[in-house]
């Protein structure tokens, strides 16, 4: 007989559950279960009143585990963990059973079956509650230092922001100088302000701060340790330096798409990429000889094979350059061959202005991209213009500008070290694009700027400030708390065969002495609780806390035991 005191709460979810599941029947079926001392139904378990009632039960009846059978844990796991904590109950002694997504919503055609399934699910939950043990979060002391990789506008801005909060920053730049792409440009959209002046201001500011150390011609060569306490090795102009930092911000930026030889005539001196054109315009190499300019958009972006994404900055940048060219030569004739003009937000004004200055826009279908015929001094562009009923037209032009998009940097050695997840597009992946946009699955490693995907400068800065803020919240507290549901090794059984270390994607095992023998030990801060080590252990010496083999077996037994009894 169990000496546990378990409370079970079955939620109507207003009808979302109770319309299909007979919750009263479920309650009756589980109230006599071993260890259950309270079994109730409730209209909305997540409501304040219901939570108060549960807290009262915990306190008055001395419950030492609870089961709430309601919705998906994705929605309310943390709600009820917090509630348990308020009631003085260890949050890991609370079990969530998903009666809504996994039962009532899925079986609207079969209320009886749904009710039987609900009974089984709740009984499995009770079995898990019986096996639950208190767990404490893993606490890691944090270093108040941050490593930023990449010295473009994102890295610089994040560095200043962290320095302002009293956190020391090591800014590591691969190139000879910091400043990144913006350093190249004297006029950037939408305002036309100088990109160079902008980053030079940031660099001056960064250099004047005592708590920012800039390393140029430097790269990360090794990373060890955990969130809050990383040990990183950087190579600066041949010399290796060891640093201890609490978090890492990856702001390594992007590269411009480089067309292949012959792609839209690329290789001919009169066919240039967007950045080359921008430099031409800014250096005054753009002169009266160039009477006609033809822009071809989406080069290297939105392809059926290859880069499927939109690079989002290029329409704006191309139109901004077009306006600069009009300033130098107002009578220049400009043609824009595009797929879709995406001058989102305030940048729409660029499109409008270029159009009013006389730019002619032609739209091509992805099925029949424009053709560039470049021979000797003559360059001709042929395109079927969708805006003119697909009529094929030929433009004789002095210059073709390939509006090239952004591609991820080839950071192979860095990727090897950081093991950051990389998306289909080759850019670094965040955990959640909306809710956790700068965090990665590697705790303590953040991404910022165009390393994450195509961004313009102000979007890059927004994300770099977010990464700085997330780093600071982590480090300023002085410690971090990690999920305790991690693997644990039974040292008595372990014989150190090393299979667990091989199976672990996070290098979370180390070899330690246990009395006479060598055994494996979990580095808890590194472990994600994925469980990859559990089945490979020949001695059955590993369990994931909260998901122990015995617990899972007990749950399966309940699920298989069948409905009413």
């Amino acid at each position, binding site marked *: 007989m169990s000496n546990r005191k378990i409370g079970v709460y079955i939620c109507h979810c207003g009808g979302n559950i109770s319309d299909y599941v007979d919750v009263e029947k479920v309650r009756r079926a589980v109230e006599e279960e071993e260890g259950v001392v309270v079994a109730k139904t409730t209209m909305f378990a997540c409501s304040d009143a219901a939570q108060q009632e549960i807290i009262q039960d915990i306190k008055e009846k001395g419950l030492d585990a609870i089961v709430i059978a309601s919705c998906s844990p994705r929605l309310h796991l943390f709600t009820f963990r917090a509630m348990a904590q308020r009631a003085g109950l260890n949050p890991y002694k609370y079990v969530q059973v998903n009666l809504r997504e996994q039962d009532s919503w899925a079986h609207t055609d079969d209320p009886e079956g749904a009710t039987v399934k609900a009974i089984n699910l709740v009984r499995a939950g009770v079995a898990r509650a019986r096996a639950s043990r208190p767990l404490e979060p893993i606490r890691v002391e944090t270093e108040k230092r941050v490593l930023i990789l990449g010295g473009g506008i994102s890295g610089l801005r994040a560095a200043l922001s962290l320095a302002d909060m009293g956190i020391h920053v090591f800014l590591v730049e691969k190139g000879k100088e910091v400043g990144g792409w913006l350093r190249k440009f004297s006029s950037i959209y939408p305002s036309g302000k100088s990109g160079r002046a902008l980053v030079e201001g940031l660099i001056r500011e960064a250099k004047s701060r005592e708590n920012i150390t800039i390393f140029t011609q430097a790269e990360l060569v090794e990373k060890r340790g955990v969130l809050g306490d990383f040990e990183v090795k950087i190579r600066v102009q041949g010399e290796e330096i060891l640093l201890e930092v609490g978090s890492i911000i990856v702001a390594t930026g992007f590269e411009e798409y480089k067309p292949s030889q012959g792609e839209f005539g690329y290789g001919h001196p009169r066919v240039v990429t967007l950045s080359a054109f921008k430099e031409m315009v800014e250096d005054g190499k753009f002169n009266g000889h160039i009477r006609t300019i033809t822009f071809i958009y989406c080069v290297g972006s939105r392809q059926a094979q290859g880069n499927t994404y939109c690079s989002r900055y290029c329409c704006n940048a191309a139109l901004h350059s077009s306006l600069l060219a009009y300033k130098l030569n107002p009578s220049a004739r400009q043609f824009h061959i595009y797929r879709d003009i995406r001058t989102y937000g305030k940048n729409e004004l660029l499109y409008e202005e270029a159009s009013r200055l006389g730019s002619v826009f032609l739209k091509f279908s992805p099925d029949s991209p424009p053709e560039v015929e470049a021979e000797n001094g003559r360059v001709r562009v*042929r395109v079927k*213009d969708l805006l003119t*009923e697909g009529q094929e037209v030929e433009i004789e032009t002095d210059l073709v500008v390939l509006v090239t998009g952004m591609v991820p940097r080839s950071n192979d050695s860095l990727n090897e070290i950081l093991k950051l997840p990389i998306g289909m597009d080759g850019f670094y992946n965040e955990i959640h694009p909306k809710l956790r946009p700068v965090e990665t699955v590697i705790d303590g490693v953040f991404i910022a700027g165009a390393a994450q995907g195509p961004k313009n400068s102000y979007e890059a800065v927004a994300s770099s400030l977010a990464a700085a803020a997330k780093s600071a919240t982590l480090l300023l507290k002085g410690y971090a708390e990690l999920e305790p549901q991690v693997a644990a090794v039974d040292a008595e059984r372990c014989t150190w065969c090393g299979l667990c270390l091989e199976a672990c994607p996070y290098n979370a095992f180390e070899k330690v002495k246990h009395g006479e023998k060598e055994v494996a030990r979990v580095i808890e801060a590194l472990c994600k609780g994925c469980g990859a080590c559990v089945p490979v252990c020949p001695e059955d010496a590993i369990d994931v806390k909260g998901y122990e083999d015995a617990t899972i077996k007990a749950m399966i037994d309940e699920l298989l035991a069948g409905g009413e009894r």
Partner: protein
Amino acid sequence: MSLKVNPTFIEKVKKLGAFDINACYSCGNCTAICPLSEGENSFPRRMIRYSLLGLEEKVLQSPELWLCYYCGECSETCPRDADPGGLMMALRRYAIRSYSPGKLADLFYRGVGSVFFWIILTLLALWGVFAFRQPQPDLTRVNPLSFVSLDFLHDAGLFLGGFIGLAVVIQLYTMWRHISRGRKPSGSWGKSLMEVLWNEVFLQKRFQDCEEKGRRIPHLSMFWGFSLLFIATLLAFGQDFQVFPPAAKTLARVLGILGGVGLLYGAGYYIVKRLSREDYYSKYSHHSDWIFLLLLWLAGFTGFLMDLFHLLNLPWPTYLVFALHLAVVFDLLVAAPFTKFAHALYRPMALWLSGVYREKTKEA
């Protein structure tokens, strides 16, 4: 077949009135709102694209230019204030120039230069009248034929008629060549012509489709006024001008009076409208619009003034106004194929051809 883009085309057209057309972003609201654009005939958006890309031949091939009545609904609807109606008008001016032999019409569509040309034409006409006038006009009793001889009127009339006739034939042929290119006739020539004459020329029903319906009656009045005067002149021509006494009870005289009144009303109405600039169509006036209206009105006015002096038996005033009347009519007619007047030719012709070449054959 790919067509060459020609950026200079739109620059030429812009000088004729399409000042804002670059703002167009191809939304197609203009075509959607246009009460006259239907089926195969898609305008004004198609014309805007042809113009921006400089596909001149496509523009000249399009009967659509002449199907537009310039009501301005497209321009009022345009979200970018690109004034598509203004472009259609400018393209018609461009077409009048392009269809004319040797680009004669260019003389009338320049800036200040064309005003000088009009003055020269008028002086030429006055010089002709005075150089060939009778040496001893009747000063006791008004007799216009004693001032300008019947022979002179006859010869000048035949010369003018021949010149205009030739220009009209050449121009309509040119237009037909352009519009029929790459197309095969599918409608009936005769039936289409009858429909155009009845609905579009005699009754001008198309105006009914425009929101601003007030334009139709004055336009009809102007059209019929001029036509009746023209018929009256032809009749008078055949009767050796035995029509001059204002009291003469001849058919020519009756038609002349009716026509004159219609012309004065119609042209006067439009002059007042263009001065007030209230409606879209009267808001922007090219000098070619003003000269055309003024000449029409003056032709009617000088005619009646001459009759008035005739009735009052004032020989010299009558003769001088007669000279002026001849000069005005000369200006109007000699320039007719090359000025705004030519729309009276091109519009029915385009409607006719559009009825005949209904389905566009696809280009190889």
